[in-house]
C-alpha cells in the first residue's frame, strides 16, 4: 500500500481539525502552487500548549502529518514543541514514501511558524531555531516543490 496504516488512520480520521477562535499563535506554511498549505492554531497557557488545531490543503500525507504533529505537541511545553522534528513526525506515522517526506517538513515548519507568531504577539524576540529558511517569501513559507 502507498501509506502505512497509521498514515491512513490519521488521514481518514484526522485529529484536531479546525480553527481556534482566540489563538495565541497562528502559523501558515506552504504554497498553493505546490498543492500543500498547512495552518496551525495554538492555545498556550504559560509554557504549555493547551490546545492545537489545524487546517490543511494537501495530499493524504499532508493531512496525516498535520494531524500527527498536533497530537505530538498537544499538552507539551513550547520547548518540547520546538524540538519536534519532521523525522519524528514521519516516524510516528510508521514512515512516509520518500517523495512525501516534504509534507512532514511542512508540519514541523507550521508548528514553528505558529510558535514564532506567538513570540511576536507576546512582544518577545523570536528564537533563532523558529526562523524558517525562507520566511519572507510570498504566500508565507517555504515550498519544497520548487515554486
Amino acid at each position, binding site marked *: 500500500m502507498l501509506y502505512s496504516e497509521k498514515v*491512513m488512520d490519521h*488521514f*481518514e480520521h*484526522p485529529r484536531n*481539525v*479546525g480553527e481556534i477562535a482566540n489563538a495565541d499563535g497562528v502559523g*501558515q506554511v506552504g504554497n*498553493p*502552487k*505546490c*498543492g*500543500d*498549505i*498547512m*495552518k496551525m492554531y495554538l492555545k498556550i497557557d504559560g509554557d504549555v500548549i493547551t490546545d492545537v488545531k489545524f*487546517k*490543511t*490543503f*494537501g*495530499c*493524504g500525507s*499532508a*493531512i496525516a502529518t498535520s494531524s500527527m504533529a498536533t497530537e505530538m505537541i498537544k499538552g507539551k511545553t513550547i520547548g518540547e514543541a520546538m524540538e519536534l522534528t519532521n523525522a519524528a513526525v514521519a516516524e510516528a506515522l510508521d514512515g512516509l*514514501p520518500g*517523495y512525501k517526506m*516534504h509534507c512532514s517538513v511542512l508540519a514541523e515548519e507550521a508548528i514553528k511558524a505558529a510558535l514564532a507568531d506567538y513570540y511576536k504577539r507576546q512582544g518577545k524576540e523570536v528564537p533563532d531555531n523558529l526562523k524558517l529558511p525562507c520566511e519572507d517569501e510570498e504566500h508565507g513559507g517555504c515550498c519544497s*516543490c520548487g*515554486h
Partner: protein
Amino acid sequence: MKHKMIYADHAGTTAVTPKALEAMLPYFTQGYGNPSSLYAFGQQAKSDLEQARATVARCLNAQPEEFYFTSGGTEADNWALRGVAELMALKGKKTGHIITTAIEHHAILHTAQWMEKQGYEVTYLPVDGEGRVDPAAVEAAIRPDTILISIMAANNEIGTIEPIAEIGAIAKAHKVLFHTDAVQAVGHIPVDVQAWNVDLLSLSGHKFGGPKGVGALYMKKPLRLPALIQGGGQEKGRRSGTENVPGAVGLAAALQEAVDHLAEESARLAGLRDQLLEGLTKLPYASVTGSRSQRLPGTASFVFEGVEGEALLLHLDAKGICASSGSACSSASLDPSHVLLAIGLPHAIAHGSLRLSLGPDNTQEDVAYILKEVPAVVNYLREMSPVWDKDAQKPTWVL
C-alpha cells in the same frame, strides 16, 4: 461498511473482457507453439497471430502487414519517434525538427525530450483552454527540416479529442510524416487510419479490454521504420522477440468486441459521463477540464478549487470509488499535471483535479453513487482547507 467497488478509472487500465480472456486462454497451455518454428504446431500459432493482426487491421481500416505488435502503447510511441529519426538518419538527415504538443503522454514527451538531447529540435505546440490543438498552428510550425508530426488522438487526462483528420490532411499536403498516439482513442471512438491520413499510429491493448503488455504500431505502407528492438527477426525483422501470441490474440478479440459495440456503448457512456459533468459542476468553483463537445465518451474530468487531488482520491477509495487525478503514471510526481497547466490552469487549481473514466461495467447506479459521494468528499476537504472560505463558498486565494 465499504460500498462495493466502483471502478471509474478505465482510462488508466481496464479488465480483460471475458471474450478476450477466452480467446487468449488456449495459447498459454495448449497452442503455445513458437510462431517462428517450422512444425505445424508452431505454424498454427503463427497463423493465429496473423489472424489477430488481420482483425486489428480491419478494425482500423488498414492492411494487416501495416501492423507490428509491441509490448504496449509506450513502446509503440518510443518506436515511432526514434524510428522516424533513425530512418531519416539512414537517409543522411542526422538531425531535424519534430512537432508535437504540450499535452502528449509522457511516452511521447520524454522521448521527445531525449531526442532534443540527441540534437533534434522539438516544437511543443500549445493547446487552447479545452486542450485542442489548432491545425493552423501545426501547419505554421512545419519547417523544411520537419521530419515528424506527433499529435495524440485523444488526451488521457482531460478526454479531449484532437482534430486528427485535419492535421493528417495538412501533414500529407506538406509531405511530413504524421504519427498519432491513439492509445486513448482506439476502441473508444471510430478510428480510420486512411480517413485520418496518419502514417503511424500507436495503440495499447489494456485500454480497451485487452491484456496489459501488448500494443501495436501501425505503419502506413510503404513506410517501414528500422527496429527499436532487434534480434531474432520476428515481425518481419522490425520487432524482434518471441511473439506474445496470447497477448496479440487477446488484444485483437477485445478490439473487435469494442468496435462491434462502439456506437451503442459510446452513446451509453456519453450519457453517463454527461450526468457526471453536469452533476459535479453544480458544486461551486468546480469546473470541467477539456472539451465539452470533442470528448471521449467515457471520460469526465474536473478541477475542484481548494481541495487537493490525492486526498480526494483516497477518500473516494475509502468509499469504494476508483478514480484518478491527472495521469495514473504521474501520481508520484509533485508537480501538477502538465496537461492541466497546458490548458491554462494555475498550479493551485490544477492540484485539485479528478478524472472519472467509465467503462462497460459502469451503470446508472454507479453514477448516482458517484454524484452523491464526490460532493460529500469535496465539501469535507474544503471544510478542513485553509484556503476555502466556508461562508462565502469560495477559495480565499487570489491567483
